[in-house]
């Protein structure tokens, strides 16, 4: 997992903004699993202070897994050879290329199960 992703995640959450993120987690035995994670921000009813974060995790399909793992591998390499800042820039560049915001991108990943057929067909044309 690239540090870039956790940096973006915590920056967002500490500003009180919910987010969706794909995370590769490690189990105790050393296996891993990919989770499409939706994180909500819970605030104190009276003071409005941030109290808790609640994460909901769901599986992702192979198409999304392939795309995300390739992206994360590249971001991680940039991060390690350069800096965390370079990793963040790289991720933003990736999104800019597609003319998507981070949230739009996550939405596409979330919906990719339905779109997969159409996208695969379009990609084959080019």
């Amino acid at each position, binding site marked *: 997992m690239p540090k870039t992703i956790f940096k973006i995640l915590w920056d967002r959450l500490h500003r009180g903004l919910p987010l969706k993120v794909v995370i590769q987690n490690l189990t105790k035995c050393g296996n891993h699993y990919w989770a499409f994670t939706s994180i909500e921000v819970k605030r104190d009813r009276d003071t409005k202070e941030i109290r808790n974060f609640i994460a909901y995790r769901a599986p992702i399909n192979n198409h999304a897994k392939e795309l995300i793992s390739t992206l994360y591998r*590249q971001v991680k*390499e*940039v991060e390690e*050879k*350069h800096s965390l800042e*370079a990793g963040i*820039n*790289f991720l*933003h*560049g*990736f999104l*800019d*290329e*597609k*003319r*998507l915001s981070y949230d739009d*991108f996550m939405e*596409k990943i979330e919906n990719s199960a339905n779109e997969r057929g159409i*996208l695969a067909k*379009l*990609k084959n*044309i*080019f």
Partner: protein
Amino acid sequence: MTQRPTPTGKEIRLDSKKHIVSKTDTKGNILYANDYFTEVSGYNKSELIGTPHNILRHPDMPKAIFKLMWDSIKSNQNITAVVKNLAKSGDHYWIVTDFDIQKDPNTGAIKNYIAYRQAASKKVVEKIEPLYKTLKEIEDKHDMEASFEYLTGYLQEKNMGYHQFIEELAKPTGMAAMFFEAMKKLF
């Protein structure tokens, strides 16, 4: 400045369906490069990140064209330009480039440039190559100001700006144009 490779004179044929994409800061330092960029240029991502984009500059390219390009995008104007780039191997490839200009939402100052490049067709290269050769010769014998003047005169004769001139030469037509637009937006 990084040592640039020696040109081999060999042309790399590009896949006309793919885009070479990069994002730079306002000084031209690379922040992002897509997979096709690394594939064609022969540089890996870590080599490209943080490096000025002119690492790809081919010695045959007249400086006047880059001046034109920078003048345009710095003043927030997209420009379609034809460029001969130098890969790490010393081979070269011809591209037509297009820009997205990103501004700071608060200050309005330009923050980044995103360049989308596609293969330049044979027809475009055949038209452009002799012009660039002339410009380069003028630059070598005189200076960039002289070649810039020459270029201005050349375009005036055609009654066009450079952007328009290239668009006329390079623009995909009909269905192809629609598909290229769709592709840029494709996820």
